[in-house]
């Protein structure tokens, strides 16, 4: 008697358990599929850019999905100044502009943060950089 009831009790129990396990497995499989989709969607165009960059000019529109006709000519062409392009100069310019604007905005930004805290919050809540990086919580302030 007792054994019979025991088996009767455990049977549906294990059934539920396997069902739950299957569902979990199914859920995680779905997660991985979507994650893979996102990764491909984000990386494929960028990958294609890199592949094209290393490809011989005559084969720019070749549809081989992997690296083919590999050459560094494109990079040489990009950095050469023969055609009036000054990529090196442009890179240096970008660097200069980037560094100087960062330093200046940081300088005034720091002053402003100090102002913010001094005016809007009791010093006990002083927390440097609490709103940076922007977490976009409802409490996010500019």
């Amino acid at each position, binding site marked *: 008697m007792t054994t019979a009831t025991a088996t009767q009790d455990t049977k549906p129990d294990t059934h539920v358990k396997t069902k739950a396990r299957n569902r979990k497995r199914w859920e*995680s499989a779905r*997660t*991985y599929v*979507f*994650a893979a989709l*996102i*990764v491909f*969607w*984000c*990386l494929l*165009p*960028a990958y*294609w*850019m890199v592949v*094209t960059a290393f490809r011989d000019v005559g084969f*720019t*529109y070749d*549809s081989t999905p992997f690296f083919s006709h590999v050459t560094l000519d494109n990079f040489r062409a990009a950095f050469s100044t023969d055609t009036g392009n000054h990529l090196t100069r442009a890179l240096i310019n970008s660097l200069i502009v980037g560094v100087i604007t960062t330093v200046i905005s940081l300088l*005034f930004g720091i*002053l*402003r943060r*100090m*102002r913010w*805290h*001094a*005016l809007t*919050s*009791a*010093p*006990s*809540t*002083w*927390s*440097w*950089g*609490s709103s940076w990086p*922007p*977490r*976009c*919580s*409802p*409490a*996010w*302030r*500019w």
Partner: protein
Amino acid sequence: MSTEPQSGAAAKTDQPSSRKDEKEVSHRKEATQGRAASMLIVPSIIVLTIVIVYPVIAAVFQSFQKDAGLDKATGLFVAGGFAGLANYKHWILQQCTAGGVTVPCPPGTLGAQFWSSIGTTFFFTVATVVLETAIGFGMAVIMARTFRGRGLLRASVLVPWAIPTAVTAKLWFFIFAFEGIANKIFGTTILWSGSANPARAVIIIADVWKTTPFMALLILAGLQIIPGDVYEAAKVDGVTAWQRFVHITLPLVKPALMVAILFRTLDALRMYDLPQIMTGGANNTTTLSILVVQEIRSGNFNSASALSTITFIVIFLVALIFVKFLGVNAVETTTVSGKGKAK
């Protein structure tokens, strides 16, 4: 001590502190507010005046100026002077001057493109923001789950965002070239830059590719502040996944979501580089910003100022609608009543 990082939530609970702390607090308050604070504001205000206030006022001022030119009656060269609303009428009412007479702008001129470029700008804005919100939400939901390789997912999502827009434009330009990979994969022979709809589709795809990660990260940040026990409680009550999404996720993520949509919309309304590089504004892909630059390039600085002022007002109105009528709270904390109303 008081400068040590503290989360906002912990600070808000206002735990009764010891007397010594309170004394220090009031002392600190005296020292930091008042004169010191205003001294700290001054440099910021000066910089903001130089880089924001002055250019805006100068542009608005210029938009009310007449072009310098020859005076018909005297044949002398005269400086501009006040033009009234002529520059604005030129765009909004499509009034062009031909030989001193006001006529409706002939098709093909920059002036005639005003309304179509407004339409294009709003079309791009609505299309990209809707797609980016939908896809970004999906991405955020996936990114919020815990699974192996989540780091890889989050890193790869940042790639499109990290590539400069000009490079993105060229990248998709190559993919959607006539001989490009897109035509080969789909077996089509579409000249993507040849007519309005394919050109617009390509620009929208490129923009969605580039900016969806931004949306996804903002929404992810919103998702992560939802406490997990809410979901657990719902699960215990036997709530389906869809009900959990509609009645828990959506209302709780709404403030962050609306801020993300607001930012994206304002950003999309001034879209310039993608269409400019991919099509140069051909085939009805001229946005307002492109029109402004074209007007500047043709030398009409005053009417270009008027157009950029109009663009500014349009964007401002859209922001106003978001903040006033849709209740987006980008600046202040959400009120409790607002949360209660959100079902």
